[in-house]
């Protein structure tokens, strides 16, 4: 058995003889007509199909099934996976994080985000309507990356099935439910668009006269 290569070895792109790269074992492709005929005959009569069927049968009777029972069971996905968007709320107050700056709308390369804004009764910018057309969205993640407020993020909901296109997708559907936000059930978002852990070290200190 060969020694498994380390990560360092993989970074070495030298594929010449003697490097940690090697060709996997495999039969050479048949080159002559006779050799091709021989391959067909052996494959046909070796009953390879039953090898596979036997594996399935064996595992079935072991009652030790590794298959994920989707859709009843779902695997957790990585925090930086880019599925259907979510709109976040602030932890403390439950206020919507979105300030209506329009950067997601601007940066969207498939032009599927639109928002309407107005001035609200507190003289703040308020988003009156916000839509993402998931039929067009390519889940590139630019919107989440550009968002200065970590308001729009990619969630983990990767199933996009609905009876109507209209369900793709309104602001209300994406917004974290208020009760969840206030009860503190939502963790600070670690996923795509979140600040990286070392951000503090890169900030230059601004003097304050207070």
């Amino acid at each position, binding site marked *: 058995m060969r020694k498994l290569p380390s990560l360092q070895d993989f970074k070495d792109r030298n594929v010449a003889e003697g490097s940690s790269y090697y060709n996997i074992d495999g039969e050479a492709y048949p080159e002559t007509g006779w050799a091709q005929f021989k391959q067909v005959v052996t494959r046909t009569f070796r009953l390879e199909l039953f090898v596979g069927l036997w594996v399935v049968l064996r595992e079935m009777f072991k009652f030790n099934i590794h298959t994920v029972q989707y859709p009843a069971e779902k695997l957790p996905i990585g925090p930086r996976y880019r599925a259907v968007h979510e709109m976040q709320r602030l932890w403390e107050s439950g206020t919507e994080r979105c300030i209506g*700056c*329009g950067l997601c*709308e601007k940066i969207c390369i498939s032009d599927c985000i*639109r928002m*309407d804004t107005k001035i609200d009764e507190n003289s703040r910018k308020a988003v009156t309507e916000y839509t993402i057309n998931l039929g067009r969205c390519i889940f590139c993640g630019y919107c989440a990356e550009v968002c200065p407020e970590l308001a729009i993020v990619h969630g983990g909901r990767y199933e996009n099935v609905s009876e109507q296109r209209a369900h793709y997708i309104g602001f209300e559907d994406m917004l974290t439910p208020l009760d969840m936000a206030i009860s503190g059930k939502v963790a600070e978002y670690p996923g795509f668009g979140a600040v990286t852990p070392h951000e503090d070290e890169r900030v*230059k200190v601004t*003097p*304050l006269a207070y």
Partner: protein
Amino acid sequence: MSDITITIDGREVQTQEGEFILNAARANDIFIPAICYLTRCSPTLACRICLVEADGKQVYACNAKAKEGMVVSTSTENIEQERRAIMEVYDVNHPLQCGVCDQSGECELQNYTLEMGVDSQSYSVRDVARPSSDWGHIHYDPGLCIVCERCVTVCKDMIGDNALKTVPRGSESISEEQKESMPKDAYAMWNKLNKSVIGLTAGGDMLDCTSCGECASVCPVGALVDTDYMYTSNAWEHKQIPATCGHCSAGCQISYDTKHESIDNPEDKIYRVMNEWNYVSLCGAGRYAYDYENKAVKKDEVAFANAIEAFKKADTIKFTSTITNEEAYILQSLKEKRGYKLINPEAKAFQDFLREYSQISGTALYGADLKKAHASNFIVSVGSALKSDNPNARYAFNNSMTMNKGAGLYFHPLADPVIEQMGKSVMSITHAPLQEEAALYLMLDLFADKEKLPSAIADYLASFHSSKTITVEETIKEKVIEIVKEMKRNEETGVEEEVEVEKSKMVPKQVSKEVEVDENRLLALLNAPGDFEEKMEKFLAKKDAFVLMVGPDLYTHPASANLARLCALIEKYTAFELVMIPTLTNTLGVSQICELDENAGSYSIGYNTEADFVLSALGGGDLDMPAINQQEGTLTSINKRVNPTNAAVGYKGYELNDLANALGLNAELTVDYTKQLPLSKGFKAEEFDSLPNHYENDGTEKRGYLLDTVAVAVSGDESVAAFDETMVITENALYLANPVRQFSDFTAKAHQSKEKAGFYAGKRYLESKGLGEGDRVRVTTHKGSLETEVVHDHFIDAEMGYLTTFDSNLKSEALFDGYRFTTASIERV
């Protein structure tokens, strides 16, 4: 002004003697950072970032004048340090709310911060509470304000409202430590910045001005924004459509900023109007009355068929001058083809006035334009309510006062506080209506070379002069010799003794003297102020560029022919150059393109005006037409320039061109007619698509083309009739005008213009009559009467009021004979 050569950063640059270094650099695409400077306004010296080194000395490029052979370098180590420090200072306490700021990236603070590479902050000062406030149509957020004072400068030097000023901020002073450590200019700039914010000159919490919105337009950050626009859109979302404003004859270059209306409605909507504020200043109508398009129009085939029927039946087309040159040309072609009578009383009056004028002047059009007025230093305005007839003419008037140390005379029966407050060198002569001839005769009398003037006129002018002996009290100094006793030391004896000494002394003494003075009866006729002659002497010192602006009061005057001839004589025999203010948007174009008729026939088609069959861009007519912001075409401005305009929002209905095609003309697009406009009137055979519409870096106007000067055969007869001194409206006068921001039904239609049609009068008049805002009055003249509402106008100060014309539901024009003044009785209902 002579051409000179200076060297900027090793490049030889041609410019004029006395031009600011900054402007010379900009004209030649050399970048010098500058925040507070506005072209056409005086340097403010607030930002100090335009520091350059000229002949080894640090100067501010915005106020240092170029001299022959000057060597300028735009960047040295010290200057770089200053600039970086200045930008750091601007960023002190500036909120990081760029995400919601309405400047949305079109921000000079952002740009220069990045340009100077500011990546850290060295300065700080404790901030004070600076709450934002709504000043009516403008919203001010002092937190975002960098106090560059551009708003203050433009309001004073260009607009003439003086509505804004800097007020104390009430903050802590900058620490000594920082003062020591920072560059000198940066500190000086910060020290001033830290002490002030922008406030209202008149106090209170609402702007009381002519609402042009230029302050918000010039604001480099998002401190001043239009209240209506706030938070509705980001700047980058807009499609910018270069166009020409369709409200008055100034023909300002504007850009319609459009975007889809909302998520549910993908139709384009105009969100705001922007302008190249360095080179053109808009009025409130241009900036805010943009949504006058004819909405939701579809092709109504029945109405179209009816229109064709009506055209076949009609013998007259009535129209207003709020149409493009191409449409005017279509109407003229229809006249030629089918013999319609073209009726447009206001353009006809202007056309007749021009014809009469050209018989003496020998040119089809007046000689000067508003650009000349901006550059002049002595302006006279006769026969126009300047601020509402043509706001740009008013800006030119004010700009010449502030920038060229100019002086001006404003002849009008309605005293205008806006004009009067432009400065001490403005004299307002409130003459009685119908005395406009006296004003023009006075101009001839004061400025014409009497030797050259036709002798009949010179004699006529002399007949107004008489000599009069008056007693003048004068103070003279007289020499008096007094004998004074003094103590003096006798040099021989050394004893002090009293000596009598003769001393002479100058003593002021009052004497009365009989002086013979010249009395000019024209001044009395015009109700000129008593010190007119003394003031004129001061006004005329060091003046060399004279402009006369005449307005719509003259065109419909009963003696308009005479007035036109007087204008021509003034232009010919005095140093004055002449500008006429066309009555409506394209009155000049219409008067050049159409042959207009006096009397209507039996069945008429009306285009935006009442008739038997109405084509209307306002909606509600028998057939819908596109408004000016929905069509391509050209408009002829007061500056004799044919400006292209574009469609900002969509229109799906029929156009005049469709009707014309059905009636036997043939053109695919209305703008196909652009190259066919009459060459004999100075138009050029240029394709619409080849007409530019922008300004260059040095301010050169690249918009459409200028009308060629067309020579007209002169009759040789330069006589003018004497005027009738008795024909004058002495009391109960009524004027026909509009409040600022209103011109026509189109401005009235816009959602931001909330002015009501009615009887407008100043405070003094209303108090004397016991009337108040909102009262209903019956206005009666010899032609009829109407009932309307009283509105208090802050911007007039006269013994009379005016009826508005902008809303055609108020049939105000029917009460007048054509001339804009009449006698009327006004009674409370």
